[in-house]
């Protein structure tokens, strides 16, 4: 169905942006908007750890240990479900492949867990094979707490709520388990190119 809105012309697309890189229903922004469900948590680095769990803790790193892991530079386009996309964002952090390479497992899904109680679920194949990182710099600077610092997940091929802020670990799961937004009406998977914004899309 297409209902014409009388008198609506629209501003048209951002002419500078490469439209082939912008998923349907998204607009390019140069700002970096902040979106989260509650207050910004602040965890001091001497108490920060990153863990891989599967019921028990399989492996854990302190901040210093984490920072000593091999790091990748990542440049990626990001797409927020609230309809902004930001192109060529640059980050630095540890590949999830590196982290999962340190444990024995046969999980099919992961649930990222965070300070503040936020969680988000992802299929294992979406966080392995060079598709996901735990990043701690943005644009060459330490990641601001309002953008998820000290470290956040970065899974740029899915809507950005999957790139959980303030991430503290990954729980390995045999079966998919909806996270925070996924139990509050948002899509279980969240592919921006298929506009999987809400449950049922």
């Amino acid at each position, binding site marked *: 169905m297409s209902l014409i809105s009388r008198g609506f012309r629209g*501003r048209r697309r951002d002419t500078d942006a490469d439209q082939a890189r912008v998923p349907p229903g998204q607009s390019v922004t140069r700002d970096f908007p902040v979106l989260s469900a509650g207050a910004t948590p602040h965890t001091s680095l001497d108490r920060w750890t990153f863990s891989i769990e599967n019921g028990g803790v399989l492996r854990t790193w302190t901040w210093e240990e984490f920072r000593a892991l091999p790091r990748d530079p990542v440049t990626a386009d990001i797409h927020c479900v*609230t309809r902004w996309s930001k192109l060529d964002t640059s980050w630095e952090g540890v590949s999830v492949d590196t982290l999962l390479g340190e444990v024995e497992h046969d999980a099919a899904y992961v649930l990222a867990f965070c300070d503040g109680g936020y969680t988000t679920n992802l299929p294992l194949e979406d966080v392995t094979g060079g598709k996901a990182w735990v990043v701690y710099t943005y644009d060459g600077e330490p990641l601001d707490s309002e953008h998820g610092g000290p470290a956040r997940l970065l899974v740029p091929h899915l809507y950005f709520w999957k790139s959980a802020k303030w991430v503290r670990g990954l729980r390995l799961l045999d079966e998919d388990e909806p996270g925070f937004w996924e139990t509050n009406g948002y899509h279980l998977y969240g592919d921006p190119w298929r506009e999987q914004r809400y449950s049922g899309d």
Partner: protein
Amino acid sequence: MAGAAVLGGLTWRVATVTAVVDETPRVRTLELEVAGWQGHLAGQHVDVRLTAEDGYRAERAYSLASAPGEPPAITVERLEDGEVSPYLTETVRRGDAFELRGPIGGYFVWRPVDGGPLFLAAGGSGVAPMRSILRHRRNTMSDVRARLFYSSRTLEDVIYRTELDGEEVVHSLTRAQPPGWTGYARRVDVDLLREVAWPAEDGPLAFVCGPTSFVESVAAGLVELGYASGRIKTERFGGTGGS
């Protein structure tokens, strides 16, 4: 979960504008009639989709400003560099139609059983979902205490002014104040919140909606005052490259 149950697959529906209410020089409320509307919860939002004659489309999300049980309504602030908001605040008139889907969201939601006391904090047009919550509380004769802290630039920018006179509201006018103004006249900070928010010992439930800087200040301030972070629900807008 409740959110998923409310959603159950979202379809685009036709929304017809039944009334246009000028709230402030830059803000309008559009009252809508939506065929097949299933009702909504206080705090939920909708997606609006506009289509130009050549097929170009733009979508934006707006909080519902009406209470559960009432027809849907949205309150839109005109952004000078906006694409959709100038259309909704200037071009649209009664009888026009556009597409809408929703209601959406299962988190920034208040039901009377959720209790309180409710501390609501709104910056600018972030007051829209607060009207839904306050009306719902009133309509259901809930005995939950509710207080709204509402930050606006000037008195002229205060949305729902007459309606809010009947509620417990603390205003701050950050840019200009009328002669004899006795309310707050500054941006929100922890000292202001200490004076206006329910004490943390009462176990309040907080809803915060507004521009990012406002939401960050309020949420951080409430945590500092001892509010449980799981009882501070935030919704942000602005800085998204124009709405």
